[in-house]
C-alpha cells in the first residue's frame, strides 16, 4: 500500500503540475506533493522496520535493507529540495531568468524525476531498473536546459548524449545478464530479471558472460555515477542547470546509479569469484578521486567546483564498495547517505549565494558572512563537512574507508592521501575567500530558504556522532549482503 502511494503520488504530481504548473500556487503544490511522497516513504520505512524486508507486486518490487534507506533519503532530499526551490525559483522568476511556462515544465519534470528515482530504487526487475534510469535522464535533461542559454543547452545536449549512450551499454549488459539467467531460471521466464531470483542462483550463472555483462553495466551506469573518464557530462550539467536540479543530481541521481552498479556487482561477484568486479570498481574509484582532485584545483565556477567534488566523493564510495568487506561496505553506505545530504545542503547555500552575487564566478563572490551570516555559515560548514571535517558524518565514513584501505589496499593510500589533500586545498581556499572578507553582494528580493540547509547539516552532524540503531542495522545487513 505504502509502496503504491510512494510511486503514485509523484506521478500524480507530475500530471497535475503539467496541467496547472503555470499557476502561482504551483511551487507550493510541488512542495505539497513532495511532502506527501516523503510521508509515504516514512510510512514504508516504518513498515520495513516493523516487518523486515518486503516483496510486493508479484515480486516486481522489493524493499530490503540496501534500498530502504536510499528510498527514505531520496524522498527526504526531494522534499527539502522542493522547499528550497520554492523561494529559489521565485527569485529566478523575479530576476527574469525563467517564465511561467518553463516553471510548469520544471515542476512537472521535478515530480517525474522523483517518481523515476523511486521506481529505480524499488523495482526488483533489472530491466525496469534500466528503464527507470533512462527515464530519469530524460526527465532531467530538459531541466538542465531550462534557462535556454547557449551554455545550458550545450550542457543538456552532452548530458543527454553521453548518458544515453552510456545507458545503452547498460542495456546490453542487462541483456547479457538475462541471457545468462535464462540458462538457470528457464526459457523466457519473466522471473529471469528479478534480482531476488538472480541473487538466489548467482552461484550458477555463467562467469564468462557475467564478466562481459558487468563491463557493459559498469560503463553504462558508471557514466551516470560520473566515474572518470566517463564523467565529462557531470560538471557541465551541474553548473548550467538550476541549482535545485544540481542538488538532486548530485544528491540523488548519482546515488541511484551507484546503487544499480552495486546490485550488479553483487551478482557478478557471486558468479565469478575472481574479484574482477571489485578491482574494476577500485580502479575507477581511485582514478575518479585523483582526476577530480586535480580538476578541482583550477575551477572558477562554484557549481562546477562542487560538481567535481561530487565526482571525487562518488569515486571514494566506489573505491570502498570495490574493496568490499563489512567495514568498507558499511562506510560506503554511510558515505552515500552523508554525501547526498551534505552536497545538496551545499548546493542550497551556493544557489542563494550565486543569486546574491548574480554570478557563479567565485572570484566575484566575497564576504558572504558579512552580508548574510546564515548563508555564509551554511556554506562554510557544508564545505567543511564535505571536506571530511569532524564532527560531521562525512568524516566518520572517510575515517572507516581510509583506515580500512591502509590495511586492505596499502598501495592505494598514497593516492587517496594526495587526492584528499589537493581537494581540501582546492575547495577550501575558494570557499574561505567567498565566505570571509569584505563584501560586494546585494540583498535578495525574497527571503532565502535556509531551513533545508541547516536541517541537512544537522542530520549530517548527528550521523557524525550518533547513528540510529535501525539505520546501523540496515547498513550492517546491506554490507553483509553486498559482501
Amino acid at each position, binding site marked *: 500500500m505504502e509502496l503504491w502511494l510512494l510511486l503514485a503520488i509523484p506521478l500524480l504530481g507530475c500530471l497535475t503540475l503539467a496541467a496547472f504548473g503555470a499557476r502561482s500556487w504551483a511551487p507550493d503544490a510541488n512542495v505539497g506533493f513532495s511532502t506527501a511522497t516523503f510521508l509515504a516513504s516514512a510510512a514504508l520505512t516504518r513498515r520495513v522496520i516493523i516487518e523486515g524486508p518486503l516483496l510486493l507486486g508479484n515480486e516486481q518490487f522489493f524493499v530490503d535493507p540496501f534500498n530502504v534507506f536510499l528510498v527514505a533519503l531520496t524522498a527526504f532530499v526531494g522534499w527539502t529540495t522542493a522547499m528550497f526551490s520554492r523561494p529559489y525559483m521565485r527569485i529566478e522568476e523575479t530576476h527574469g531568468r525563467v517564465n511561467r511556462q518553463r516553471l510548469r515544465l520544471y515542476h512537472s519534470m521535478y515530480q517525474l524525476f522523483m517518481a523515476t528515482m523511486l521506481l529505480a530504487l524499488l523495482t526488483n526487475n533489472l530491466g525496469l531498473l534500466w528503464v527507470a534510469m533512462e527515464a530519469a535522464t530524460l526527465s532531467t535533461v530538459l531541466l538542465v536546459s531550462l534557462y535556454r542559454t547557449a551554455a545550458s543547452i*550545450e550542457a543538456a545536449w552532452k548530458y543527454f548524449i553521453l548518458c544515453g549512450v552510456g545507458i545503452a551499454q547498460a542495456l546490453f549488459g542487462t541483456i547479457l545478464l538475462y*541471457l545468462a539467467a535464462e540458462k538457470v531460471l528457464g526459457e523466457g521466464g519473466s522471473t529471469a530479471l528479478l534480482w531476488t531470483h538472480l541473487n538466489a542462483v548467482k552461484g550458477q550463472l555463467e562467469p564468462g558472460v557475467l564478466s562481459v555483462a558487468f563491463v557493459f553495466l559498469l560503463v553504462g551506469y558508471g557514466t551516470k555515477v560520473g566515474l572518470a573518464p566517463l564523467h565529462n557530462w557531470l560538471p557541465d550539467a551541474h553548473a548550467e542547470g538550476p541549482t535545485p536540479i544540481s542538488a538532486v543530481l548530485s544528491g540523488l541521481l548519482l546515488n541511484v546509479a551507484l546503487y544499480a552498479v552495486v546490485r550488479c556487482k553483487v551478482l557478478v561477484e557471486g558468479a565469478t569469484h575472481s574479484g574482477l568486479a571489485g578491482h574494476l570498481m577500485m580502479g575507477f574509484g581511485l582514478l575518479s578521486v585523483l582526476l577530480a582532485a586535480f580538476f578541482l584545483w583550477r575551477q572558477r565556477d562554484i557549481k562546477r567546483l562542487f560538481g567535481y567534488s561530487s565526482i571525487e566523493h562518488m569515486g571514494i564510495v566506489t573505491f570502498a564498495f570495490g574493496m568490499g568487506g563489512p567495514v568498507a561496505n558499511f562506510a560506503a553506505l554511510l558515505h552515500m547517505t552523508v554525501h547526498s545530504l551534505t552536497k545538496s545542503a551545499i548546493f542550497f547555500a551556493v544557489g542563494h549565494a550565486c543569486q546574491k552575487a548574480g554570478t557563479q564566478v567565485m572570484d566575484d563572490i566575497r564576504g558572504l558572512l558579512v552580508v548574510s551570516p546564515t548563508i555564509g555559515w551554511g556554506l562554510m560548514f557544508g564545505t567543511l563537512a564535505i571536506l571530511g571535517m569532524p564532527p560531521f558524518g562525512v568524516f566518520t565514513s572517510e575515517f572507516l574507508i581510509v583506515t580500512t584501505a591502509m590495511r586492505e589496499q596499502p598501495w592505494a593510500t598514497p593516492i587517496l592521501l594526495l587526492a584528499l589533500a589537493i581537494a581540501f586545498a582546492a575547495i577550501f581556499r575558494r570557499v574561505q575567500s567567498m565566505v570571509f572578507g569584505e563584501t560586494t553582494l546585494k540583498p535578495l528580493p525574497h527571503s532565502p530558504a535556509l531551513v533545508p540547509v541547516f536541517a541537512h547539516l544537522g542530520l549530517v552532524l548527528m550521523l557524525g556522532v550518533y547513528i540510529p540503531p535501525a539505520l546501523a542495522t540496515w547498513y550492517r545487513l546491506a554490507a553483509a549482503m553486498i559482501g
Partner: protein
Amino acid sequence: MTSLPWTAQLIHLSAAVLLLSSFAMLSQRRILSLVNLYRLQGVVLTVSTLVVAYTSGQNHLYVSAALSLVLKVIMLPWILGYLIRRLNVRWDTEPLLNIPATMLVGILLVVFAFALSQPITRLSTSVASSTLGIAMAVVLLSFLMMITRRKAISQVIGFLAMENGLFFAAMSATHGMPMIVELGVALDVLVGTLILGVFFFQIREQFDSLDLQHLEKLKEE
C-alpha cells in the same frame, strides 16, 4: 549452411543486412538517406522478430514486432524526416575521420565483437544465437558513427541505430526481454526522440545551425 532451416537462414540474412546497413550509415553523408537506412533496419528488425516469434512460439514477440514496426518503421523515421525538412539539414559536413579510415576501424570492431561474442554464443540456444556477435558489432559501429559525425541529427540517428542493435541482440540471443521491459524501452526511445526533437529547435534557435562544433564552449581552460 544449407542444413539450416529457412527460419535460421532468414535470421542470418537479416543480421547480414543489419550489419551492412550500419556500415552504410558509417559511410553515408546524406542525412535523408541515413533516415532511410534507419527505416530499413526497422523493417529488418520487424521481420526477424516475426520469424523468431514464429519459431519460438512466444506470443509477446509478436507484440514487440508490432511495436518495432510502428516505432521504427513509421513513427521515428517520420519524425526525423519532419525535423530534417523543417530545419533543412540535408548534408552532414565532412566527418571527423575520413570514410575509408572509419571503414577500417569498423571492420576491426566487427572482428572484435565476434571474438567477444564467441564464449557467449555457445551459451545461447536460440535459433538466432550466432547473431549476437553481429548485434554487438552493430552497437559498436553505431557508437563509432556517433563519434565521427559532426551534425547533431546524424549523431542522434547513430544513437537510434545503436538502440536497434540492442533490440536485435535481445531478440536474437534471448527471444526478447520480458514484455514490460520491452514496453519500457520502447517508451523511452520514443520520448527520447521527441525530446531530441525539442532540442534541435532549441539548438537551432540558439546557434542557427545543428553543427556540433558550436557545442564546444563548456570546457576547462
